[in-house]
């Protein structure tokens, strides 16, 4: 992370000056707290307090209507014995594994292509980012239509090549890959934008020096581009992985977790427990599990990227 640019106030001697400096300093402090006050309020009331509450709530049994019953660690015991929880967690991991590598590789290829000086590269950047803003709920409606076995465009196109589509969304094998591919479609361009920013931050002189040393294209990619792209790669992987672990909307509209439990992600399972089965305390416990998994995965990424970073570009 970039270090702060705030220069500490120059040290000056003398009684009156030091006095006025102290006065200035306390005025700055006051102003600073005034500036962050609204955000700090929102942060404490709607982020920190909820996190505290969710830990408390995980010790209770609560149906959202009558008063909560203290049950101690019963929710946690239930969670460890609940095969549906582990199934949902596994589904979530499967979704992340389908979604992230494909999306990142495609985004990297796109970024490399668009980083060249060429006509129309600005036009393509805009075109590729457009899917990012599609409303996932509306998108679910559209992709349901595309993957429909009777009227869908996907089956029609593959039938032109002599293939027959499976019943995509009612097949427990295909439903999750379909949901993952919808998200690859949606976020590849957005990810590409950040990788492109990273590519453009690489100084051209590095390549010129490498060219003098007779480095070939493949070496250049693996020895220069990829290592120097690490900060951007780190940013997109951390934020995309955190986002992917929270898949809900596409599942909600396209499959409702089915067929069977094959697309029930953690978020969807938590939603079902809280707002369909009214097990709010248990849902709180499940959301702590999801939180723990995300923290673990994010921490692992921090460790991995720190260990492998040879150059410090912060």
């Amino acid at each position, binding site marked *: *992370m*970039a270090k702060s*640019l*705030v220069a500490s106030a120059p040290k000056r001697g003398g009684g009156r000056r030091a006095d006025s400096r102290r006065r200035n300093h306390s005025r*700055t*402090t006051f*102003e*600073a707290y005034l*500036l*962050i006050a*609204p*955000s*700090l309020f*929102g*942060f404490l009331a*709607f*982020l920190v*307090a*909820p*996190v505290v*509450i*969710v830990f408390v*709530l995980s010790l209770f049994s609560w149906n959202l209507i009558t008063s909560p019953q203290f049950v101690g660690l019963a929710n946690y015991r239930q969670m460890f014995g609940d095969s549906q929880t582990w199934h949902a967690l596994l589904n979530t991991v499967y979704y992340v594994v389908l979604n992230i590598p494909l999306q990142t590789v495609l985004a990297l290829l796109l970024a490399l292509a668009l980083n060249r000086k060429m006509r129309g590269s600005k036009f*393509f950047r*805009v*075109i590729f*980012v*457009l899917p990012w*803003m*599609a*409303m*996932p*709920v*509306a*998108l679910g*409606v*559209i992709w349901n239509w595309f993957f429909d076995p*009777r009227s869908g465009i996907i089956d029609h196109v593959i039938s032109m090549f002599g293939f027959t589509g499976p019943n995509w969304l009612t097949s427990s094998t295909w439903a999750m890959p379909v949901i993952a591919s919808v998200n690859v*479609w949606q976020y590849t361009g957005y990810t590409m*934008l950040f990788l*492109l*920013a990273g590519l453009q931050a690489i100084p051209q002189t590095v390549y010129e020096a490498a060219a003098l040393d007779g480095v070939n*294209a493949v070496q*250049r990619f693996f020895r220069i581009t990829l290592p120097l792209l690490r*900060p951007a790669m780190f940013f997109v992987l951390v934020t995309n992985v955190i986002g992917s672990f929270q898949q*809900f*909307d596409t599942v*909600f*509209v396209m499959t409702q977790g089915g067929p069977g439990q094959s697309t029930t992600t953690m*978020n969807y399972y938590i*939603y079902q427990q*809280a*707002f369909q089965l009214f097990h709010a305390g248990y849902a*709180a416990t499940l*959301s702590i599990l*999801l*939180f723990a998994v*995300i*923290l673990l995965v*994010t921490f692992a990424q921090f460790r991995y990227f720190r260990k492998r970073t040879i150059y410090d570009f912060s």
Partner: protein
Amino acid sequence: MATKPIRGRISSTTIYLLLSVGGLISIAPYLMTLNAAFKPQSTLLSTQAWTPATPATWSNFTQLWHQYDMSGFIVHATIVAGAITIGQLVFTTMAAYAFARLDFPGREPLFWAFIAMMMVPQIVTLIPLFLIMSHLNLIDTYRALILPYVFGTPYGIFLVRQFFQTIPADLEAAARIDGAGTWGILRRIMLPLSKPILATLATITFVNTWNSLLWPLMATSSERDEVVTVGIAALQGQFASELHILLPAAAVALLPLVAIFLVFQRHIVRSIALTGLK
């Protein structure tokens, strides 16, 4: 110059061809949805998605508006997303400036606390938010939808702070010597220079709010304040396979954002490049 060897091997034509195919895949769902929304119900399922809607008809839209309060959903979503976007712009800018440029006790731990909370999954906060809002009797009001997100997000503060740090400190020092206070500097120096990042933040916030489903689904239960995501989810449940209702609704939900993006796209592409990803 550095790219010359690659250029020799993979011809520009191939790259253009691949990019065009990719670009088509990117926008085809938009185009086909818009096209299908104008097809009469009778031909919607009997023709291919890419065949043009001739004759084009508004009847799907009128039927949608007849059976459903689409205007209401859109107005509600605009109010909620607009209020949150304005709030976030104001409060995020203030906080980001303090974190980027002012020296105050507790700055570093507070900033890192904000950053750490970026990792909290949204679902963790939703059940407690529901609890808080129902205690305050705010469930099923605009306030329940707006309050949790109007004061800014750690992500936004991080984004804008990073940008502020790229603005030379000398500019500010000069203004201070001329007698400008913190507010003056923020208004007259930082804001004019920050238009690209603020346009980006505005777009990201508006898009995220407009598209968000989970919290509105929990916090609203009557058509009085439901937003367009919840409306479409309900439509999907009610008219599961009636595409002549669902596709116009999807088109109406998608297009406002495309319009906003096309207005701001230059700022967005540039400011992401400027912010630097360090």
